């Protein structure tokens, strides 16, 4: 279950000068992003900062306007990266008319996994997310929190080395959020890399490194301790504001 990649770089994700421009504005504006292998990297920022756009470009769901990105050393977009990536969209992204089992099976079969293999992994995943007894329930009948867990399982079934989680904890109650972070740490413990977007500042403290994102770019990056020290505060929210102010002042000069 180790992290096996064919490149020697210490980075799982490397993006340089990444730009996503739509007709009206640049959602992502010359973003440099490096995510080390085996870390949990948190992209933190308000709505509209460009977090989702960044994730979608890395998954090949949106075209990169300019700049470039590499995942496991391969140039994005490249369908060969697809099996290395486990993408969990903001939306539940499950088929409500299928059972938990059928959903997991579908996303496993896409990657050409055999029947036995899927069944084994499914069993492990269901134990992992504590939904073993709900295996044959229609997803449409599950509670919101349960759906979130199934969604995570569907992103894990092909055992990706990189997890791209787009606001996986939005609308999730505190208890489940806590257990989600237990999941993430366990996944990390198996040598996987996780990129997670969130606008909950309290969640950021659980990441190995954080990137503060605003207006399509990073305004600060580092471990929680580093960022707090740099901003000379003891709260991440305050730190974010200070960095934002600093950027705005810089822009005025």
């Amino acid at each position, binding site marked *: 279950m180790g992290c096996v990649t064919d490149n020697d770089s210490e980075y799982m994700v490397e993006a340089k000068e990444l730009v996503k421009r739509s007709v009206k504005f640049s959602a992502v504006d010359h973003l440099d992003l490096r995510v080390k292998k085996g870390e949990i990297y948190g992209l933190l920022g308000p709505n509209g900062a460009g977090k989702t756009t960044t994730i*979608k470009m890395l998954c090949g*769901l949106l075209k990169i306007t300019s700049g470039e990105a590499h995942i496991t050393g391969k140039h994005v977009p490249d369908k060969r990266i697809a099996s290395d990536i486990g993408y969990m969209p903001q*939306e539940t992204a499950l088929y409500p008319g299928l059972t938990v089992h059928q959903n997991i099976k579908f*996303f496993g079969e*896409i990657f050409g996994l055999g029947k036995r293999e899927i069944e084994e992994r499914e069993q492990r995943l269901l134990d992992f997310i504590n939904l073993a007894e709900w295996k044959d329930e229609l997803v449409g009948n599950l509670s919101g929190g349960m759906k979130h867990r199934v969604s995570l399982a569907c992103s894990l079934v092909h055992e990706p080395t990189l997890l791209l989680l787009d606001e996986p904890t939005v609308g999730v109650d505190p208890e489940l959020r806590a257990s989600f972070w237990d999941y993430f740490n366990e996944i990390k413990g198996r040598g996987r890399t996780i990129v997670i977007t969130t606008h909950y500042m309290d969640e950021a403290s659980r990441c190995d490194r954080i990137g503060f994102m605003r207006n399509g770019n990073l305004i600060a990056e580092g471990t929680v301790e580093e960022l707090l020290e740099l901003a000379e505060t003891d709260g991440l929210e305050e730190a974010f504001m200070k960095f934002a102010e600093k950027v705005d002042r810089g822009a005025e000069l």
Partner: protein
Amino acid sequence: MKRIRFITVTKRVFQDLRNDKRTLALIIIAPLFAMFIFGLAFSGEVKNVRVLVVNQDHGVHKALSVSDKIISNLDRAVLDVKQSGDEGAALKQVKDGDAFAAIIFSADFTRSVMSGTQGSSTGENATVKVLLDKSNINVANAITKTINDALLKTMDSVGKKPPVSIDAVAVFGKNAKFMDFFVPGIMAFVVYLITTLLTLISFVSERTSGTLQRMLSTTLTERDIVLGYAVTFSIVGMAQALLLLVVAILVFHITIVGNVLLAFVAIALLAVVSQAVGILLSSTAKREAQAIQVLPFVILPAFLLAGIFWPVEAIPSWLRPLSYIVPPTYTVDACRAVMLKGYGIGKIWIDFVALLAMAAFFLTMAVWFMKVRKD
């Protein structure tokens, strides 16, 4: 106060409508669309139907030929009359689908009419023989009626009422009942409608629920997804056709002359086209509710222009090009030709070519539209 409360609701709903240009457009365009299409399609009588005339009548005293008069009295708005040398050639043309009927006047037609007129009621009956393609009932009826009108008009001018009868010989569709004609049409219509609807709705929910994004983040490509849908729905379409056929045979006792397998291929191709249309339309909708708004544009043209309930020949000729861009038209035509006339692939290949071309076009467009959305 109650009045004020409901007015606030009214205002809010209007506000909603004003903000939603799509719904606004639908409110305006859809009724007009329906009215025009219904109005135009219904106003059309059967027109310009190709009919052959084989006139072997010698007439009497050279000067008088009743058959010539009848022919000149045929309503040229309805019938596109062409002369033909002999009965055999004419029959072949009807069989090949080049003409809907052959009207045959025998050598002694005028003499029989005159003797019938002069003589008593025991005089010999003059007969107009009509070799008729009855597989399209509306057209067949229009032809018979037009000949009858011409007969009556001619006889009025000649003199009394002669016992002239029409001997209609069914080339196709012997004992054809309305259901025989209707089933191939409704098969195509149902498959087109349901397939388009299902893909439209399920694809919109793929988009809104995020499953499409999740699929595209995997090794699946846009083409995989479109083809996956295409295969599913061609199978569903054939199953629907099978169900309809079985019920039609058991309940309505319809008769099928030709090779039903060909009809199934036409249905499957239509299903492929329809699901691609559904996927294309889904990219115009952001929510399930919006998907419903495009339905009139899916249903009405097929309902009215594809020759399902009345023949394409009954649609005004300037409107007919529209019929030929509505996908079910080709399936209706192919299924009817196979099931009622027993035509083989040699005679309906053009329908298959049209369906294949449409499938290729709409599948490509569906994939292309999905890719464009990445920008």
